[in-house]
């Protein structure tokens, strides 16, 4: 019997699910190996019986946390899909301020946002801060072929092939001129490879959407950035965009050390 796969979306742009719809004819191949039982963005049918749950989006409210926990209970394997689910993505920048301050700015302090579960935001969380995650498909958006590779590996009971070396490896293979040499900046040295260095290949800096590698040489990287004339503030602006999770972690560790 084909394993049953269900897709669930939380806070995000749904662009990662769209990448799966964008597999076009390959979707037809995909449904040869799995049965899609829930995919709200493109189908009406829904079933709570599934083997693999694919979670898109970050977790921003208690009601979403509860929903995610229920999904975890139903699923044998849980996959975090995309930067929102894996690291919190851009909306994690909200964690720079108390949530009430953001609500005041966006909703002008309307009284209706009080005591209302829909507005009960806490800090932006990645999926693995709420439940156990078995596999990750990083990136904003995900690479549709990488998703297919991960799914095939999971179906075969293998470890999903996600690289744990920096983006520079792929960028060098592409024979791109290093962006630092061109007077630009790049998160490549500490960012997880796997996207084929798509941004530097198109002349734009890596913004770290796939998250850091397990053991990034952060200090050396910061030194490089300083050498190329980036101020501390500018470095932080880059690290807070997609990867505020790691900034939070560093802050926490620094607090512990004190």
């Amino acid at each position, binding site marked *: 019997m084909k394993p049953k796969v269900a897709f669930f979306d939380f806070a995000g742009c749904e*662009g990662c699910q769209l990448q799966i719809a964008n597999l076009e004819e390959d979707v037809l191949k995909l449904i040869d190996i799995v049965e899609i039982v829930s995919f709200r963005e493109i189908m009406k049918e829904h079933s709570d019986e599934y083997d693999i749950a694919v979670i898109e989006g970050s977790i921003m409210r208690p009601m979403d946390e509860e929903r995610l926990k229920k999904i975890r209970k139903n699923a044998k394997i849980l996959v975090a899909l995309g930067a929102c689910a894996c690291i919190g993505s851009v909306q994690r920048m909200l964690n720079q301020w108390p949530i009430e301050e953001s609500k005041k700015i966006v909703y002008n302090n309307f009284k209706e946002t009080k005591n209302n579960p829909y507005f009960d935001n806490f800090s932006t969380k990645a999926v693995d801060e709420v439940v156990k995650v078995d596999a990750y498909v990083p990136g904003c958006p995900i690479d549709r072929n990488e998703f297919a590779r991960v799914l095939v590996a999971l179906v075969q009971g293998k470890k999903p092939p996600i690289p744990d070396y920096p983006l520079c490896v792929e960028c060098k293979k592409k024979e791109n001129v290093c962006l630092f040499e061109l007077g630009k900046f790049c998160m490549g040295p500490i960012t997880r490879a796997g996207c084929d260095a798509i941004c530097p290949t198109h002349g734009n800096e890596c913004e770290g959407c796939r998250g850091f590698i397990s053991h990034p040489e952060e200090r050396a990287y910061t030194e490089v950035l300083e050498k190329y004339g980036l101020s501390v503030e500018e470095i932080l602006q880059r690290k807070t965009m997609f990867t505020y999770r790691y900034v939070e972690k560093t802050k926490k560790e620094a607090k512990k050390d004190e």
Partner: protein
Amino acid sequence: MSKINIAVKHLTRVEGHGNIVFNVKDGTIEKIQWQVSEAPRMFESFLRGRPYHQMSHITSRICGICSIGHALCSLKATEAAMGIEVSEQTVLLRKLALHGENMQSHILHVGYLVAPDLFRVGSVFPMIETHTDTVLKIIKLHRLANEMSDLMCGRTTHPITLIPGGFTAIPSEKQLRNLKQKLIDIIPICDDVIQTVLDNIHMLPDFSRETEYIALTTDDEYALYDGVIGSTDTGRHPIEEYESIVNEFVVPHSTAKFTRHARESYMVGALARFNLNSDQLTPLAKKCAKKFGLKAVNYNPFMNNVAQLIEYYHSVEDSITLIDKLLERGLKKKDNTKYKVRGGRGIGAVEVPRGILFHDYTYNDQGICTKANLVIPTNQNHNNITKDMEIFAPMLLDKSEKEIELNLEMLVRAYDPCISCSTHYLKVEFKR
């Protein structure tokens, strides 16, 4: 039928989370609601403190389907704030990128999300068996649109190459010539898909409600990338007056930021554009409109689906013209506008697949954003959806619950709502 209770939680085949609640007792409607339960991400808060060069990359993440439109609107706001004038080549290339997205989004909606309603199935998957040829053709239309976005922006979703002042990389002339050929070749395939939709168009409910339509408009062309604000009720208004056009307001007992202009609600999107600017469509698009008998002003919201198909033709044909123009001029590799970072306020407006979009930024002298306001098409439509529902629902009472549910779902879906985009959260009623 004394009691009907319909609660569609997490409406399917739309982008984002929305609920429909419909309660009837003894033939009287007690409650009809369109709710949006999407988690608020509050972009306008975390855009504070971001440098100008990150703005289009961050705001493209508002929406996975219209990320190119958000990026372009963002760039236009930044460029307006800093007095950056881009080259003609940049404008032509950006217009191509916008067409690619418009085609992608429209065919995704009509082909994958609406078509199952025409065949009364739950998704496109069963259609693979029953309507193999049509599905494969829809996939072709969708893939070409994606290839086009890939070529113009570096990838389909969340553009890489679009930056203030121009592009980090542009396609080669050879790639543009290839694209042109593919666009020419897609036309007969498009004709076939249109025919299938035309054969089943009677499955769309016949419902009209007079309302106001708002879209960009200009004398030069069918407005998508540029123009002034046009209204079927009040004529033309400069972009700078957008706040007094959208009039975001709060309904009593609701946190909803609705919009309203000349009347109780207005509609944006493909049908609004058609109703305002149909004279400027390309010949094939006009021919398609004629096939469906669509004439401006049309007040049937379900015709938004048809207007999207008409626009697919328009985007194909206009893209061919744009490519010809680019090839005739010859592509310049280095064509970006040089600029100095400076402070100020800038407003951008672009027609994205679901309608008129506004980005409004204020920068300090270091180019750091200090204030951002975003008005998203789907939010402008929520009020119109609600008003439609209030008129449409009573007309459905003699139908089965299943049919009522389907009809209400189809109504919401016709607007192609993209709820993830809703930076301003909307909710119709509280359940405490």
